[in-house]
């Protein structure tokens, strides 16, 4: 990989890669280290990537594997399989999201369990097709869809709770909360 290609890859992907690392590690220092490690490996092994269009997926997959390597030294990862999707999406309107600060959204997302959080983060980063998400996370496409669905449901539930705190006068939201099916 020549310098121009590398610079282009950094410029194009470092922001999203950092955000993905942040969603994995939960803090800025580790997110930076994960991004640096992924790009460092790109420098060393980038020559093996024949199709430059694959660099993005390669970087995200590499970063994820680096993180799994870190984690496996601490404990074995729990493995979850989702058979079906039964959660109803909480009744939250786009304007409810507007009252929330950016950090609240980020924290709510980070509170989700990892197997819901990761596909959702990649989804919201808008950089990956759902097939690429499946490749990065090494799970079947159907699993990505069901995890996205359930992850969204859980995220909206958290956001709705935060929005209710911000808008105590809103009757509609309170009624929605009461009528919502418990997950």
């Amino acid at each position, binding site marked *: 990989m020549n310098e121009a290609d590398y610079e282009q890859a950094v*410029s194009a992907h*470092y*922001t999203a890669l950092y*955000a993905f690392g942040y969603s994995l590690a939960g803090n800025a220092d580790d997110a*930076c280290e994960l991004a640096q490690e992924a790009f460092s490996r790109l420098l060393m092994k980038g020559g093996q990537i024949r199709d430059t269009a694959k660099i993005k997926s390669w970087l995200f997959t590499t970063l994820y594997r680096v993180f799994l390597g870190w984690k496996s030294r601490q404990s074995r990862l729990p493995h979850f399989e989702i058979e079906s999707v039964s959660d109803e999406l909480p009744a939250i309107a*786009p304007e409810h999201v507007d009252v929330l600060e950016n950090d609240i959204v980020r924290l709510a997302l980070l509170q989700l369990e990892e197997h819901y959080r990761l596909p959702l983060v990649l989804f919201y980063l808008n950089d990956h097709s759902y097939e690429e998400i499946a490749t990065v996370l090494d799970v079947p496409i159907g699993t990505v869809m069901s995890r996205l*669905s359930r992850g969204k449901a859980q995220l909206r539930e958290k956001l709705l709770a935060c929005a209710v705190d911000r808008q105590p006068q809103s009757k509609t939201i309170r009624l929605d909360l009461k009528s919502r099916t418990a997950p």
Partner: protein
Amino acid sequence: MNNEEAKLILQAYRPGGEDSVDPQFREALEQARLDPDLGAWLANELELDQRIGGKFRDSVTPPVHLKSRLLAQRKIVKPVVWWRQPAWQLAAACFAALLILGVFWNRFEGRNGFPAYRAEMADFVGHRLDRLDLMSHDLAEVRRWLKDQAGQGELLLPAGLERRPSLGCRLMDWQQHKVSLVCFDLGNGHVAHLLVIDRTALPDAPAESPVFTQISDVATVGWSRGEKTYLVASQGGSQLDLMKLF
């Protein structure tokens, strides 16, 4: 495709990207176009996703130094193609590679030899053994279990070990070779762990005469008989205990 299935698919949909050309999305999108309720639901979904995604992306911005650090990495980890190196550098690199290869070869040999096997097994039974696959005081049952589970042939045990009550057994792997572990109660508060492996797995397997070695707090004795190599390891046990087995 019913509306519930369409919703599941459309929850993974983002407009303006590759998703639009995916046949699965296209079918669900067409359904949303024809069904006003589904269409309204999708519009609300996309609006929500856009706002949530926007707020998330805005909230996770990399520190200002990250990009410059990443760009600086290319100076540190810059692979130089071999044909651009001066001849003396190439020669030095070849010499170093041969040296490293030699060291690794020796280590590889060492890792696969009997001393390495003995040390690893002594450490395992002394400090890491956490369970047995079969708990039984009946040695005949243990032999049958090992034969059924691992195709383990007849164990040719020294007389002193045959007389001891067994505690159970376990199957393990070492360097991709099957190892059978049988535990015996030595009767003095110590346990003798017998480990049996194919003789061919160890290029420097001991001969038929037992070889006694103390590894830290684990007394060991190794020997070969027939097609198997046997190792007995006993944590806290003494060489004398092990000698009594023969």
